């Protein structure tokens, strides 16, 4: 072995030693004080200006509401797999009192981790499994879709509305149906073109889908995916789009007609309060909409004629007060079989498991 190698080894050992001595002096503070510790796990980056961004807005609202009394932590880009289980377990070990798991696929991991840590409270978004220390919450986004669908039906000149959809799950199918019913009511000639891209967040795929829809004649594009890419494409191509999950007008000042905004903040603030006061309960399933402020309709663009604005607001107010239900019969399923009788409204069970299109929508739900 030559001398250079020896020097290199000695140098490396010295560096490693120095590092470990340095680092062992700093003790990681884990068991932290009397602060109420709240953890959040996100499926993507909070910088997506969509789904995760709004959850993070909720997290910040919790910090603002309780200041020094709470400490919030979050983890981004957590895959819906065994990794989610590990992340939540580590959070629980780190002394977290309440964990908000903000994506559907965390459902089984939440149930597993909740079993191991009965003292930790879990809030799972959009799932359907609960336990003594697990409650779920979801928003009636389809109410927002109804308002947006009306605006889309009125604003389209080509009578073709594009729809970029993520996964064929009840949540997304419900949104398509709700938007279509409202659009059809506003404009009997309207047709929906739907592209499924099988991802929640992929700006390049989202933009490609929007471009395809526009090239097929769509002049209004709805989306049920998370990024702002579609808004940017719409602005560039001179068509209309709607903000998803948060206000995206910054990405398309002319294209952005309005937005369906996810209002998690009041819910998070309330649940953390219950946790701190000891009144929090498991086995709850919250499904709130415009009325409770969990779904918010953004500002309406000045491009929208006043009459349409008024109609949209009337739909919003009607849904909020409970006088109007987006799924009110008569409605047939796509195959023509009757679903809702005249005046009948959809029950929650059918809505939560919705796996069919309503009459008039073309194409099939991918299987």
């Amino acid at each position, binding site marked *: 072995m030559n001398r250079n190698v020896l020097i290199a080894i000695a140098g*490396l050992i010295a560096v490693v030693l120095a590092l470990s001595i340095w*680092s062992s002096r*700093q003790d990681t503070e884990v068991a932290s004080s009397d602060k109420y510790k709240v953890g959040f796990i996100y499926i993507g980056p909070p910088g997506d200006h969509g789904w995760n961004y709004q959850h993070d807005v909720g997290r910040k609202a919790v910090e603002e509401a309780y200041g020094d009394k709470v400490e919030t932590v979050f983890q981004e880009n957590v*895959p*819906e797999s065994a990794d989610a*289980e590990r992340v939540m377990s580590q959070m629980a070990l780190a*002394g977290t009192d309440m964990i908000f798991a903000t994506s559907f696929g965390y459902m089984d991991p939440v149930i597993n981790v909740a079993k191991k840590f009965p003292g930790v409270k879990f809030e799972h978004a959009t799932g359907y499994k609960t336990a003594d220390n697990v409650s779920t919450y979801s928003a009636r986004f389809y109410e927002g879709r109804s308002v947006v669908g009306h605006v889309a039906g009125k604003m389209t000149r080509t009578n073709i509305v594009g729809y970029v959809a993520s*996964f064929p799950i009840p949540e997304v199918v419900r949104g398509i149906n709700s938007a279509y019913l409202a659009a059809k009511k506003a404009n009997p000639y309207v047709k929906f073109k739907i592209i499924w891209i*099988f991802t929640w967040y992929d700006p390049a795929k989202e933009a490609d889908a929007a471009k395809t829809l526009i090239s097929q004649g769509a002049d209004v594009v709805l989306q049920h995916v998370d990024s702002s890419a579609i808004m940017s494409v719409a602005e560039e191509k001179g068509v209309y789009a709607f903000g998803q999950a948060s206000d995206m007008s910054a990405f398309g000042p002319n294209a952005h007609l309005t937005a369906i905004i996810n209002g998690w903040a009041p819910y998070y603030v309330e649940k953390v309060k219950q946790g701190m006061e000891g009144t929090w309960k498991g086995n709850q399933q919250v499904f709130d909409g415009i009325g409770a402020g969990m779904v918010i309709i953004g500002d309406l663009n000045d491009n929208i004629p006043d009459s349409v604005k008024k109609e949209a607001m009337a739909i919003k107010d009607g849904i909020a007060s409970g006088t109007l239900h987006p799924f009110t019969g008569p409605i047939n399923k796509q195959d023509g079989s009757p679903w809702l009788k005249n005046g009948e409204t959809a029950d929650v069970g059918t809505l939560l498991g919705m796996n069919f299109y309503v009459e008039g929508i073309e194409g099939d739900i991918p*299987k």
Partner: protein
Amino acid sequence: MIQLIPRENVSPVLSLLGPLFSIGFTMLIGGILFYFLGVDPFAAIKMIFWDPLMSETFSTYSIPQIFIKGAPLILIALGLSVGFKANIWNIGAEGQYIMGAIFGASFALSLYPLESAFIFPLMVFIGIAGGCLWSLIPAILKIRFNVNEILVSLMLVYVAEQILALASLGFLRNPDGAGFPGSRNLSQYPSASNSELILGTGIHLGVVLSLFMIVFFYILFFRHSLGFKIKLLGSSPKAYSFSGQNPNKLIFICLTLSGGLAGLAGIMEVAGPAGQINIDFNVGYGFTAIIVAFLGRLNPIGILFAGLVMALTYVGGELTQFMLNLPAAAIQLFQGMLLFFLLSFDLFVYYKIRLRGN
């Protein structure tokens, strides 16, 4: 002008030091990066490499987790190392991993809710076969038509991902799942569940098999003629052909072996920690294993350590995220640096650098 001259005698000490140097350098540069992100670099590096192993709060949970996270990486990397030694580049282990999981899970779920002791072993076998089949495609194309196996195996990852989506939304979708994508949870099907072997740790059969395979591959590489043939094909394909051997046979063996191990990792994961076939089932083990294989110097013992170090950066990296607010991308960058520095050091290990005036 700078000239690179291959070293005639590569120092074995230097070649072992490469991985250590790259870890050291990654710590150093990573630390600087963390500093500029406003995080105490010493605290962050300690949390990645030290806390999962030594902290009282986390270690009892984290240490078995490192083995669980490392098991698929080690299994896949072992298989890849065979091919890489022979200059056969299977880049599509991710796809073979997915197909192994789909094949095995489809078999088990087709028998649900039948309970039998035969289901688990057959499921594992079919999972391995699924991975093999997927890697047979590049193998046959390479042997028959001399098609580049790098491209074919890589492209097949995307095909496998589409089949995964199809399975989760269609033929494997849980009929009791309220219309949501994803199969039944195999952990709730006792005959097919890859359950934990040591209560409370999550250690499953895949972890045990990964350690067993290290021994197997060690013997294969250093005590068996196949190991020699692989090395020979890798270092001199012409000499290999002149010696009367058929390189096609070895291409076939290398690709199916790596595919089979990826398939094994897939079925172990889907029946164990992951639990179900879902659209996001694959999280990149097949690609990360490439780093592990090289970090481990394509040596079974090296791969064991490399797999565990890589798993440590995942587990520790997660801690830094929610304890210190480091962004996820910084941790990925940190892992990427490992391979980058390793390759850089290799340059100095395998080449002499001569400055020449011109």
